[in-house]
């Protein structure tokens, strides 16, 4: 059974806040749901499915949020695989709708990472109680460090340069300058990135995503139901998800989850790489974008450095990505996956004003959760307005 065009994004809302010391996480989530339902032309009474991670919530996760908003959905999913979770939720919602488990499913996220002064990338990573953690926590792993080790290896194997990685940060900042709600909007240069202090070699401060508060929500429904709603539907064509880890000590670390999730999404969508008009690629760090593009097959392994250079990633370039300014410049409240789907939806609807990609029909979304250099998840979506 193919999922292609069975379900669609009917509503999308990005909470404009970047710093909300006056709000709780649940309040940001509830405000986001109101925004997404308004966008779709639906009400809370129409919602019969709910997806959110449960991360940062109490012991019962999603159930506590259902209590807060007095929801009794027919379908709940609290898949928690890091920042990619909301991309996976969108796929799960589509599958649930296609299977008849629910008809209007909300995917929601909220976080007060910045106002609670949470060190997303440079606190001790994990600290978890899993068996694998016991063999890592004594050595001081951080999230940025785990990504930095991927960058170091890629530079060694293929001659990728810090300048090439910096080009990614520069393009994201250009896009942020055209996004009124982005947190950092002043243009930067490759030299600025290289002159910023090294956080974990070879990654500089400006190779790293920012920390903000924020939230967002999506309304996913059947293609049939979407037909008479307020906005033009954005169809879900293909999905894929998987994980990568140390593989019992035998992993090739430059092969990441995107290789598998991307292949699945393209196969299931029945589209080619050349059909993709723009992409939203999780940019926790510049190296994340670079390695994801290689693994999704937009260029060969080792060619990512050249691929991201020369302005190709700009909204007006050959391969526009992260037109909202990404996690590097717009917002990163800890898990950014939902914003990838939201911006892709806005692009496919033609709502992006000065940063609109011309003639945008098909978009790819790829979320990464966790850390490429230890273990992570990847979730890919292919979306279309046709």
């Amino acid at each position: 059974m193919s999922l292609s065009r069975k379900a669609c994004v009917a509503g999308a809302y990005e909470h404009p806040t970047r710093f909300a010391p006056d709000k709780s996480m649940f309040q940001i989530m509830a405000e986001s749901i109101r925004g997404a339902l308004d966008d779709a032309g639906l009400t809370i009474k129409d919602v019969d499915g709910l997806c959110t991670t449960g991360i940062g919530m109490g012991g019962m996760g999603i159930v506590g949020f259902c209590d807060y908003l007095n929801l009794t959905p027919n379908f709940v999913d609290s898949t928690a695989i890091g920042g990619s979770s909301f991309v996976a939720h969108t796929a799960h919602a589509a599958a649930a709708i296609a299977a008849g488990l629910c008809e209007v499913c909300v995917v929601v996220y909220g976080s007060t990472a910045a106002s609670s002064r949470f060190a997303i990338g440079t606190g001790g990573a994990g600290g978890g109680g899993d068996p694998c953690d016991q063999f890592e926590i004594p050595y001081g792993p951080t999230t940025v460090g785990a990504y930095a080790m991927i960058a170091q290896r890629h530079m060694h194997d293929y001659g990728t340069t810090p300048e090439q990685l910096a080009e990614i940060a520069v393009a994201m900042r250009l896009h942020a300058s055209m996004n009124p709600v982005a947190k950092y909007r002043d243009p930067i240069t490759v030299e600025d990135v290289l002159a910023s202090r090294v956080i974990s070699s070879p990654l500089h401060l400006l190779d790293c995503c920012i920390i903000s508060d924020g939230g967002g929500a999506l309304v996913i429904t059947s293609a049939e139901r979407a037909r008479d709603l307020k906005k033009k539907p954005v169809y879900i064509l293909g999905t894929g998800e998987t994980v990568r880890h140390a593989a019992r000590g035998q992993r090739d670390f430059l092969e990441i989850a995107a290789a598998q999730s991307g292949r699945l999404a393209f196969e299931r969508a029945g589209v080619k790489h050349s059909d993709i008009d723009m992409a939203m690629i999780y940019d926790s760090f510049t190296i994340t974008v670079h390695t994801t593009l290689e693994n999704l097959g937009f260029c060969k392994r080792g060619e990512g450095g050249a691929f991201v250079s020369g302005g190709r990633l700009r909204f007006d370039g050959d391969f526009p990505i992260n037109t909202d300014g990404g996690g590097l410049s717009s917002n990163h409240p800890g898990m950014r996956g939902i914003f990838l789907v939201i911006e892709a939806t806005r692009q496919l609807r033609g709502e992006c004003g000065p940063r609109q990609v011309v003639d945008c029909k098909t978009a790819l979304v790829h979320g990464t959760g966790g850390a490429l250099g230890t273990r992570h998840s990847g979730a890919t979506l292919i979306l279309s307005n046709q």
Partner: protein
Amino acid sequence: MADQKEKKYAKPLPHVDEETRPWWEALQRHELYVQKCRDCGDVRYHPRAQCTSCLSPRTEWVRCSGRGKVYTFTATYQNQAPGFRESLPYIMAWVELDEGLKMLTNLVECRPEEVKIGMPVEVVYEDVTPEVTLAKFRPAR
């Protein structure tokens, strides 16, 4: 008092359980091991009770040479976690052991600018508490 405070080991310690105790006890004897499946021959690190390739519980402990090469590394200049914030920069690395398995560790007795991928390294044992010894690596001599 100040002296006592400095001596207290502040970095996170592993939780040692029955499944992994033999591995940690070997480190206390300054010996490093990986595991090999007695049924299919697959080798694995970190230690766990069953082979990940065939799920066999029949496991052989293989003593390592203690030598390997730097697969990749990073020098960390920012980490707010206790124990690490006092020892910046420190070097974290995946070392590929001679036995073919990659192990996350720290590189010690060298400066970040001296480290190169592919560089031969050898194990050093740090007895960080009476109960825990860690395997770290330094440039091979």
